């Protein structure tokens, strides 16, 4: 099965054996059984997110789209935050007058829970099409209509011939998967089916394979955590070795999404984000792919660029560029190295992002003393080992947690890092403990490539120079947890996924 055949996108615990709960170390995680990892869970948990949120975050970026959230009134209420993020993305793209995102709730109430919501959904699609005349409509299935048995696809196919707009649909019920990164797959599924597989013109034909001598065009799959500056850096590097770039599918219209099928190569900048789409383009359109690295840090950027160049016989050009760029970047960061040397860093983000950023910090002479990854899958496994090797075999704790700040604060108080680098919504927990923090992504700044290497170094040096905001804060806020919590194992509430009875034996082995 794959994106084309999947009627409903499978949860990532099933598709890639993703794990959401693990407490151990960088050296231990690679040796764990996959089945055990994917089934482990928590006896105490804090709010995660569900797959609806990333799905919504991606689909709302599509231009001139109306998103219909089929469900109770609150499921789309995070739309205001997504609208903020999308506005800022547009601003960076030189489009300050972009319209606000448009979404609707079918607002299912108690009567609908009894009688079903299909009719409401149908009316909503037809009315939205007529009143707002969007180019595309996407219908999003949430928990409540799913459990009461609403046939979303049935309704969509019934009205499809009646409306001008392209209709996309997405099944992203929160209760269906623990792994919210499944939401990326769901959004890709919606875009591909809406604009290609079920498009009125049908799928575009296959393009002839690339021939030596042609200037290649590659797809670069973008994501919400990569802003315009990073896209520019990626484009700059690939252009410099003679490669043209199509960036999508976020912020892409129908034509651009269809254009993705006409590339010579698909390039991922975050394997764990993109594999489902990359596989579709490969299987259905024969487009080869690069799905291994994220171009953050010098070594990762080097590997990433050489991989891409190798597909088109451009290794020589790539090497020349890499040598020149590395030399320039190394010189540029020299002034920050004395401040950064030996700084002990704790990282927290999506697994891949956290790990490659760790590599960047090591290249600046810093040491990794802990990683919290939102989930774990095979794409990350090798990178834990690489980080350990990168610091003379020094191991560090690893927490696989969809947030769970109670584990994080416990770990931080044991590890006591000099610097915390976290995804948005992570930094505050470390800041309140007084640790200097830098955000691991912000759409305004550079993180990838050579410019990113320099900017991250500069950012870290800047925050280490003065973190009085956090330091003062830590003396003036109360703690959420009982003092005894800090004396216990941070992973106390993680239950192994092995059947009971086997647990202790296996742990001893």
């Amino acid at each position, binding site marked *: 099965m794959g994106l084309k055949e999947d009627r409903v996108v499978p949860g990532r615990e099933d598709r890639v054996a993703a794990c959401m709960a693990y407490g151990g170390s960088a050296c231990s995680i690679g040796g764990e059984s996959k089945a055990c990892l994917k089934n482990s869970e928590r006896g105490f948990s804090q709010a*995660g997110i569900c797959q609806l949120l990333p799905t919504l975050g991606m689909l709302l970026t599509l231009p001139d789209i109306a998103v219909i959230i089929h*469900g109770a009134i609150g499921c789309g*209420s*995070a739309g*205001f*935050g997504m609208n903020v993020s999308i506005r800022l993305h547009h601003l960076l793209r030189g489009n300050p007058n972009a319209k606000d995102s448009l979404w609707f709730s079918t607002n299912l*109430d108690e009567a609908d829970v009894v009688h079903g919501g299909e009719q409401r959904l149908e009316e909503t699609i037809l009315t939205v099409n007529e009143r707002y005349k969007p180019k595309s409509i996407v219908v999003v299935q949430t928990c409540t209509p799913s459990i009461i048995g609403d046939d979303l696809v049935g309704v969509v196919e019934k009205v499809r011939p009646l409306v001008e707009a392209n209709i996309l649909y997405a099944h992203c019920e929160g209760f269906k998967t*623990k792994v919210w990164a499944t939401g990326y797959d769901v959004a890709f599924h919606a875009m591909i089916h809406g604009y290609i597989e079920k498009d009125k013109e049908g799928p575009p034909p296959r393009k002839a394979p690339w021939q030596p001598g042609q200037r290649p065009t590659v797809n670069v799959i973008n994501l919400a955590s990569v802003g315009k500056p990073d896209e520019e850096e990626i484009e700059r590097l690939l252009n410099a070795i003679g490669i043209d770039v199509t960036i999508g599918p976020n912020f892409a219209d129908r034509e651009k999404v269809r254009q993705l099928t006409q590339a010579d190569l698909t390039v991922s900048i975050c394997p764990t984000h993109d594999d489902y789409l990359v596989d579709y383009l490969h299987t259905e359109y024969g487009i080869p792919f690069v799905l291994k690295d994220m171009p953050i840090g010098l070594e990762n950027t080097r590997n990433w660029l050489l991989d891409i160049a190798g597909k088109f016989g451009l290794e020589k050009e790539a090497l020349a560029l890499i040598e020149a760029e590395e030399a320039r970047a190394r010189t540029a960061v020299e002034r920050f190295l004395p401040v950064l040397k030996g700084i002990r860093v704790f990282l927290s983000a999506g697994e891949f992002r956290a790990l490659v950023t760790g590599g960047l910090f090591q290249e600046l002479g810093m040491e990794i003393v802990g990683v919290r990854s939102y989930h774990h899958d095979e794409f990350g496994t090798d990178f834990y080992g690489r980080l350990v090797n990168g610091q003379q075999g020094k191991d560090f704790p690893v927490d696989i947690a969809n947030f769970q700040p109670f584990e994080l604060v416990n770990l931080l108080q044991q590890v006591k890092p000099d610097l915390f680098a976290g995804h948005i919504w992570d930094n505050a927990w470390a800041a309140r403990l007084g640790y200097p923090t830098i955000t691991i992504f912000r759409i305004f700044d550079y993180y990838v490539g050579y410019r990113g290497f320099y900017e991250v170094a500069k950012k870290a040096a800047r925050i280490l120079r003065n973190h009085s905001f956090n330091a003062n804060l830590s003396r003036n806020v109360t703690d*959420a947890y009982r003092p005894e919590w800090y004396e216990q194992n941070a992973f106390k509430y993680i239950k192994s996924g092995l059947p009971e009875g086997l647990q202790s034996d296996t742990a001893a082995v």
Partner: protein
Amino acid sequence: MSTFIERPRYQCALGGALVTINAIERAVAIVHASPGCAAAADGAAAFGGGYWGSTVHDGRATPSSNIVEREVIFGGEERLAEQISATLDVVDADLYAVITGCMTDIIGDDVRSVVNEFRRQGKPVIVAETGGFKGNSTVGYEFLWDALINQFVSKGLPKKDRLVNIFGVLPVQDVFWRGNLLELKRLLSAIGIEANTFVTPFDDTASLKNASQAALSIVLSDVHGQKAAALFEEVHGVPYITESLPFGPTATERFLRRIAELFNISSAKLNRVLKEERRHYYQFINPLTDLFTDQDFQRFGVVIGNANYAYAVSRFIADDLGWIPYFAAITDILDEQQQAAVLARFATIPEQARPKVIFETDTSRIRERLFAELEKENDPYGTPISPAFVIGSNLDRPLAADLKAGFWGVSYPITNRVVTDQGYLGYRGGLRLATEVVSALVSNR
């Protein structure tokens, strides 16, 4: 019967209950729901609520059972019991409120039995079934208060003559709830009345526990918190009155006079407070007079927001700024009786300053209905309400641009500024609102 709603300006029942618990110091929610429910509700508050982020027990730290398919099929009661027990062990709080989402309500988990087990052991745990399909933030606020009133507030305490409870100001739905309530507390205190406001960072769970000592509840809304106050009367024998939010000198004086009369506050004391507050307002307004009059800063007002704000802001711009309220759009979901109460409130505005009132949830329909009204004016130059000023939410900025009108956002959602202790209640709140809208008029200079 409900219909679809464009960009709803509220959260679901779970969201309304969640942000209310989050606003109570040392209270923590235990969300028994799918993994994204708390995050969606919290995300709405974090952005739409003027960047009300996490404090300590909330945001990503909100305890949540995160039930998935297995619990949906086999039931989530065992998981909930495990979660409550662990939360009591790990999280330091005075009050633990279990609130539920759509899935747990639909599959019919007996959450009350689970919670009662802990209550029997003397643990401060309460429960409210707040499945999102039961309604919006207001419904959730009322459900949570039902739980607090029946399961947390102490019964049979002796009354205190000059203690009041405040209802009807919903955290996040009123983005300025903290500033508004703190100013209300300050003003009431100045005339000798103590107020339990419950949801500011300076209230505590002890005042909640002892709220049955109050002599009176004041509901600052014709529609929000009415059920809570009525239930409070039923369970704890505390009568209630309904008032509108007093923004600015005129409304605040009227409000304080009514309260002073109910509590037999001496007129000398009351007048001294009114005089001081009025003086504060006019000592700052006076120097703006050149600007205000020379630049002809009177505007036709278009006010969009929930019932509380649409009225309070319309009233302020009419009474104190001397503007012409033209149109007020109420974005709440209201039944006929509630709509009648809101209309009756608007009817108290003198006719020459009374706006046309509509009830409309959808931003683009508000625009259509306003433009239909403008069409009816039959203005030869097509600009019947120029110069206009829109006071609404961030969703209403495009409307202001279309009208070539000034704009200021005071209603949920507010995403383009940060809200801390600001508020519009009282004389000082009125001064703030005046300052802000006049600032908007000079912001291009």
